[in-house]
């Protein structure tokens, strides 16, 4: 089974390796090129949003986060070839679990640290108390 070409997976509905897609060389190049163009557009959009001062100041971080998350989606779809097809279920489920943990770690840390920060005695007062 080991030496069998992975492209034969297509006939059955068995699982596909993450990052594999069943395409010809030409359509493969097409997919990477579309991905590159979209990624360049979004990256350029991010740098533009910061430097052009066109977007209302407080909205810029939100625009950056939206652009970053959509660019990650572009990379996952066009470079890592993740799809919603049944042969990708395991890959998507693992990714979803990873995203959940990332979300808990990042948001949880920021939330807890912000609360601790609010309850801290300001540094200059702390210095006076120690005197």
């Amino acid at each position, binding site marked *: 089974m080991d030496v069998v070409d992975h492209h034969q997976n297509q006939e059955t509905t*068995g*699982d596909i390796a993450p990052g594999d897609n069943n395409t010809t060389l030409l359509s493969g190049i097409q997919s*990477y090129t579309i991905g590159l163009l979209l990624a360049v557009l979004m990256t350029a959009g*991010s740098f533009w*949003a910061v430097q052009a001062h066109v977007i209302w100041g407080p909205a810029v971080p939100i625009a950056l986060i939206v652009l970053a998350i959509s660019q990650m989606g572009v990379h996952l779809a066009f470079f890592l070839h993740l799809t919603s097809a049944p042969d990708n279920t395991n890959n998507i489920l693992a*990714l979803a679990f990873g995203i959940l943990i*990332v979300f808990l*770690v990042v948001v949880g*840390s920021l939330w807890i640290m912000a609360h601790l920060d609010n309850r801290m005695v300001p540094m200059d007062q702390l210095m006076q108390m120690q005197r």
Partner: protein
Amino acid sequence: MSTAAAKGLPDEAHGHDGAAGHGSGGPANTRTVVSYGFWLFILSDIVLFSAVFATYAVLSGRTAGGPSGKDLFDLRNVAIETGCLLLSSFTCGIMSLVSDAKRPMQTYLAAAVTFALGAAFLYLELNEFIDMADHGAGPDRSAFLSAFFTLVGLHGTHVTFGLIWLVVMMAQIATRGFRPTTMWRLHCFALFWHALDIIWIAVFTIVYLMGVL
């Protein structure tokens, strides 16, 4: 047929699926199993990065009277770095395609371009680090800079190991040809390299772009 079918349940969902890796279909092929295991590693690596990102986000304002991101970051340099890494991700994808088609010279060429772009990225990043350290903004200056060097340095370390891995893979193809074992290692490398580019999106957005706002 089966009890599942007798109860009116869909057959595939109850272990009677004949596809490889499902129900009675036997194990999936090794390429799928190896790649899936490596996919799990990549996801756990991203969880590691998320902890370092959280640390950076908490400490990013703690400059201890020292320079902040606004004073230090050169967006032009970051844009070139980003371009290098994005293009190398693209050429890495092309390398996957031509190596699947078992074309050695095109594989070496795509790998060489991928390597050159990755090395250019590292060169620019190291230059930036050295320049910052020379101007008194090393990792020991403030909590912000400690977190900055940890996060960006961790990503740079990954890129360094990726470059070493790429050279090893080309040596394997040169000496052993396009064997299945070599092919799925090369596939794991491609997953790793694309994942590093995804992490870089978060780095340039959160560290650099938000740092100069």
